[in-house]
């Protein structure tokens, strides 16, 4: 039996984490292939419904990463994102969604090695958690509720 290869989507901001991931590349630091990046202008842009969409489409894990506090290219987008994450996390937990599958972090443009660490540790965590089949159940249940 082949090892479970999780599908992980990374939602990152253009200015810090995307540049940080570029630095990982220029530094030739290797990491797992499971994580694929989607570029946003800012973590403030990341509508958390997109995360649910990703789970709905079969993602096993998600990384959200942007600039460190106070380093946001747009002054405060990352603070909005952080606050949103705090609210969202509680809400998801309440709904029965496994929040261990979402890794929220800060990676600056100078932290190429940190990005590789985050990718590898997230892949490890998600691999241990296994495929996210539960989401389909939860989402299916919600759909039923709405219909009734």
């Amino acid at each position, binding site marked *: 039996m082949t090892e479970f290869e999780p599908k992980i989507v990374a939602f990152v901001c253009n200015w810090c984490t995307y540049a940080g991931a570029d630095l990982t590349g220029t530094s030739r630091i290797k990491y797992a292939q499971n994580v694929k990046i*989607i570029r946003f202008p800012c973590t403030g842009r990341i509508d958390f419904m997109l995360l649910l969409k990703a789970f709905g489409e079969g993602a096993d894990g998600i990384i959200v990463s942007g600039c460190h506090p106070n380093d946001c290219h747009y002054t405060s987008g990352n603070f909005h994102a952080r606050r949103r994450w705090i609210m969202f996390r509680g809400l998801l937990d309440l709904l029965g969604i496994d929040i261990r599958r979402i890794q929220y972090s800060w990676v600056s443009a100078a932290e190429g090695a940190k990005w590789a660490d985050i990718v590898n540790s997230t892949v490890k965590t998600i691999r241990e958690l296994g495929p996210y089949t539960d989401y389909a159940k939860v989402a299916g249940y919600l759909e039923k509720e709405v219909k009734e």
Partner: protein
Amino acid sequence: MSKIGVFICHCGENISSTVDVVRVAEETGKLEGVEFSTDYKYMCSDPGQTIIKQTIKEKGLTGVVVAACSPRMHEPTFRKACQEAGLNPYMCEMSNLREHCSWVHDKSEATTQKAIDLVRTLVEKVKLNKPLYPIKVPVTKTALVLGGGIAGIQASLDIANAGHKVILVEKDPSIGGHMSQLSETFPTLDCSQCILTPRMVEVAQHPNITLWTYAELEKLEGFIGNFKATIRKKAKSIDENICNGCGHCTTKCPTKKIPSEFNTGLGTRTAIYVPFPQAVPNKPVIDKDNCTYYQKGKCKICEKLCPTGAIRFDQQDELVELEVGAVVIATGFNVMQPSGFPEYGYGKYKDVITGLQFERLASASGPTLGEIRRPSDGKIPEKIVFVACAGSRDPAKGIPYCSKICCMYTAKHAMLYQHKVHGGKSYIFYMDIRAAGKNYEEFVRRAIVDDEVNYIRGRVSKVYEENGKLIVKGVDTLLNAKPVEIEADMVVLASAAVANPGAEELAQKMHVSYDSYNFFSEAHPKLKPVETNTAGIFLAGACQAPKDIPETVSQASGAASKVIILFSQNELSREPVVAVVNRSAPPVYSTCVGCFMCASACPYQAIGEELITDRKGNVIKRVAKVNPGLCQGCGTCVAFCRSKSIDIDGYSNEQMYSEVMALLNND
């Protein structure tokens, strides 16, 4: 119906060595809406771009995906190529196969599959891209230069000589920076003051330069071409327009024992002071923390003595708002205090000093008028030990990077010592000699051969005092690691060059990136060394990384030329990646409900209100409206909008959802 062209780059072998590019082109060519796909060795080269241009014309492509390096590197290149072929540049997207795939993974099926997934994601995005047109904004042709060291001086003079207004802001009472503290400069040994002070005077007299010393940046808002800066002009407690710089006040001030910053604590100054005799402007300021009047409420001797009546004890800090089009950051560096290295005894023994302190001892304007004398007893040292890399290249206790200037200035110090103290003996403990620069290696050879400086390759383990001598214990690694012990009279530590203490705060005020050492980050390490990630803000000098004078001056001129390029146009084209509130036909007009959550989230106050009226002028609806001149395109408002009425061009909801879906549906 979309007709997308997919162009896969080999990047020499950078991508093709781990990703099967032919297969990526083959697989992505099968995607719905993809008209054409190919691979080529160097897409960014002229023939590569020609392939793209020709295909756009021949196949009538409606969108282009270039799968190559990071879009942060070549997105402008390929967008320009598309534009030249008649396609709107915003119909071109880049898929990052190099930095995010081929360089970080080994060659395998999974790597190629990831590349296919990444390209497919961007293909789906491009299908939903729409043509965008640059936004025109006016340019304020005044530059703000922060820092009056040699970098700031050079940048100011270059911009001013091109005919533009410059406001030079310096936090200290005089311009000149670290260069004014230096004795002589390597590799020519010409006196630092002799080459610097004429420049300082030129700055003060230039009709296009407004010089504000004793001032600091308080706030910076706005964007390229249209910044609004708030400068705090600290109270000097003198009226500069009346003061004629006679200096009576500084000679009679009763508080005389304040360690002089300019002389790195080796000399003293008064509470009302001019930092050094050649200061520009040559007018004093009152140091409120040390002034008897400010501290105890009595004294005012300077006020009584001043022949022009220029002293103003009631002067307050003044906040000035400025409109500027560009900013050059030239705030320089700092010297690490080697107190974290108790083995060197800095702070414990008076005759253990830093390199910068040695500069003051060797300087003709210094506390000893250029004679090398021990700070403890004023004796001329017969044996002197220099310790290179005191803090640099030391990840455990100091900083991991190389401070770059120390090898050269240590060689210079030893030379100056040999020239000034005949018969003296000098020793340099070093790790490596890094003398890469024009005439640098020759300079070091001169120190070794002509001036007989003893270079010892090894580290110092301990410095301690015994019978009035400093015993330096170290090791010579070139002689089978033989221990060395030198009875020295003075020890000079080449302490590391570090970022200024306020650098992080300043970077945050200006929204520019900085690295883990608090040096400001350039936009690209090779191709954009003077730009920052924030358009319109440029870097010059050692605030970016440790640099010597020639490098600093080159970078300052580079930054100045970037500013001049910016000012050469009356209008500036801005990226049209901005938020837009939707509008639709009556009776809906817009799905915006006017809650203005977006306006409260916007960091730029770019969202205002718009009243939708009927023909008679009756208000039908109150909705949000984005000012595209102020919007920077962060998209925070988009995530906030409850009715999904505000969207951002280039990163729209539709585009982002389709990216997520495309990324995951690879079955």
